[in-house]
């Protein structure tokens, strides 16, 4: 069998097992085993052991459970109520008014949380009832919340980025830095759409809240202090050099716990629930990473990614065409897989191809995170749709339709970072110096 035929066979087995409902981590490991047992002369048992052990016993990966934990703690605090109150007085003059709390709220919460479902759920919990009470358009609110919730994984910290950095062996801090500007760009696009829509449908935007004096506004903004303090604290610890990027996650947990204690929303029950949720989520991610590490070994032994990269290279695709093809592949994968599985599943094969075509791994990381964001709001398994469906009782297809304009903003963002890759690479290059 040629190397590419082996690759095809493994892909077939993988799709068969996945669609049948076998757990993703196990599927990856099974494909890895088939490849090693039948097409190489190595010892699959020994490799399985070392792949699982080496991938999980990793100091870099230790940041992952901590970032998950931070989100779990904040999810159980009153942070989102405070944020809504703090943002409210400033938005009265802008077309679209309080509708912007969805985008801003998700953006700010995204900078302390690394998960898109948690961001979406936290902000929707507060913003949705408040907006409905005041008579804002439900469709725009739902679409905006579903899509802006995905800012949680684009604006650092981000669990998805940690997973990508581990899979691609890239620097976590670099990819975090790379996420800021695209995150702001995306927020501007979302808000821009809300403004444009509100100007076209002024009759659908309810009247402003009663005006308040400047001092009242400042006073209400005091509500933003806890969240702001947490962001400043974590950045300060990092920039002052007290902690490395990984240890920063531990300080994030300490800060979040302090914040929860201070706002009196930390109970033993809460703490324990959040911690157990964290443990299970991290275990799930690490199990997938371990299965993928074993498959990656198989890939290295059989040389499939190299062959595939050569093959793609021989087709003389322009970089834009390659990116276009990959976009389509990820959009299809995204209909059935969650973001982390998508990244881990493809990294062994796609990353060599990308590097050979001359793309920056950090840039590709942001690109893939944006595609994961799209996957979160596309049916049938877009996760944010699912979150909102459960919170509002609306059918997920209705929510998906409401999200279409915002979905287009994501597409525009992908086009923009492809045409101007500096949007991604500028910040890490300035802060850390150009990558060698």
């Amino acid at each position, binding site marked *: 069998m040629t190397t590419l035929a082996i690759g095809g066979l493994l892909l077939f087995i993988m799709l068969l097992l*996945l*669609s*049948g*409902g*076998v*757990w*993703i981590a*196990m599927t990856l*490991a099974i494909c890895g*085993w088939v490849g090693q047992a039948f097409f190489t002369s190595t010892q699959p*048992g*020994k490799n*399985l*052991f*070392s792949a699982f*052990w080496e991938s*999980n*016993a*990793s*100091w870099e*990966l*230790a940041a992952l459970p*901590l970032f998950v*934990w931070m989100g*779990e703690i904040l999810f159980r605090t009153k942070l989102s109520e405070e944020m809504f109150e703090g943002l409210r007085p400033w938005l009265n003059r802008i077309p679209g008014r309080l509708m912007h709390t969805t985008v801003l709220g998700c953006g700010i919460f995204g900078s302390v949380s690394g*998960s898109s*479902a*948690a961001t979406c*759920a936290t902000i929707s919990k507060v913003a949705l009832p408040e907006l409905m009470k005041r008579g804002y358009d439900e469709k725009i609110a739902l679409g905006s919340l579903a899509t802006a919730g995905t800012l949680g*994984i684009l604006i650092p910290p981000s*669990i*998805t980025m940690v997973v990508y950095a581990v899979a691609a062996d890239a620097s976590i801090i670099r990819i975090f830095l790379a996420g800021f500007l695209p995150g702001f760009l995306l927020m501007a696009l979302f808000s821009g759409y809300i403004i444009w829509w509100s100007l076209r449908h002024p009759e659908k935007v309810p009247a402003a809240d009663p005006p308040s004096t400047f001092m009242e506004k400042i006073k209400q903004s005091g509500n933003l202090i806890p969240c702001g303090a947490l962001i400043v604290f974590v950045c300060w610890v990092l920039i002052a050099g*007290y*902690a*490395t990027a*990984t*240890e920063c996650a*531990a*300080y994030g*947990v300490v800060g979040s716990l302090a914040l929860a204690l201070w706002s009196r929303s930390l109970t033993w029950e809460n703490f324990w629930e959040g*911690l*157990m*949720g964290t*443990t*299970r989520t*991290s*275990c*799930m991610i690490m*199990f997938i990473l*371990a299965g993928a590490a074993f498959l990656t070994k198989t890939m290295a032994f059989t040389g499939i990614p190299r062959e595939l990269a050569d093959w793609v290279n021989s087709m003389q695709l322009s970089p834009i065409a390659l990116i276009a093809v990959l976009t389509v592949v990820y959009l299809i994968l995204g209909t*059935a*897989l*969650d*973001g982390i*599985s998508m990244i881990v599943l493809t990294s062994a094969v796609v990353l060599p191809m990308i590097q050979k075509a001359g793309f920056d791994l950090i840039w590709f990381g942001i690109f893939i995170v944006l595609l994961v964001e799209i996957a979160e709001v596309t049916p049938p398994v877009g*996760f944010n749709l*699912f*979150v909102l469906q*459960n*919170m509002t009782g609306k059918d997920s297809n209705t929510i998906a339709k409401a999200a279409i304009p915002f979905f287009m903003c994501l597409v525009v963002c992908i086009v923009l970072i492809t045409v101007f890759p500096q949007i991604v690479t500028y910040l890490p290059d300035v802060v850390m110096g150009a990558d060698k």
Partner: protein
Amino acid sequence: MRRLLDRLYLWSGYLGALFIVAICVAMVGQSILREMGVRTGAVNDVVSWFCAAAAFFTMAHAFKHGDFVRVTLMLESASPANRRRLELVSLFIGSVATAYLAWSACLFTYESWEFNDMAQGMLPMPLWIPQLSFAFGAVLLWVAVVDELQLVLRGETPTFVRAVEERHAKGDFSSDI
């Protein structure tokens, strides 16, 4: 037997949670000690073992709890009878795969004890000690998968399906990313 097993999964999960707290404490401690001028390189090794232990000890509990992701498109569109068949096939494949994992985890942990493999980092410690978490966790995961297989064979809904349904009905999405 039922209660014993369920407790075992849960307590093993608690153990995993303790290791996550330990990671946090070790990292903060390390950065403070470093500021005080203490050499703390060995902490990195310990943290990485904690990280592995946190994942391995929790595997059975997370599996039972429905946190392990899978593609559910086909499962959800299948008729109840077909769904049961698909679950059985998945669980059977899963029990073979995890049996192999458990076997290899135990065998090679035993080998590292036999050959007295030492950690290569700053802290010379026999590797089999941290690797015990892998051997134990993998065996327990296998037990959990076989446990589910027999439950479904007896006609019950898999625990991991029920757990997710209950959680989502309560509006709890904290375990989803």
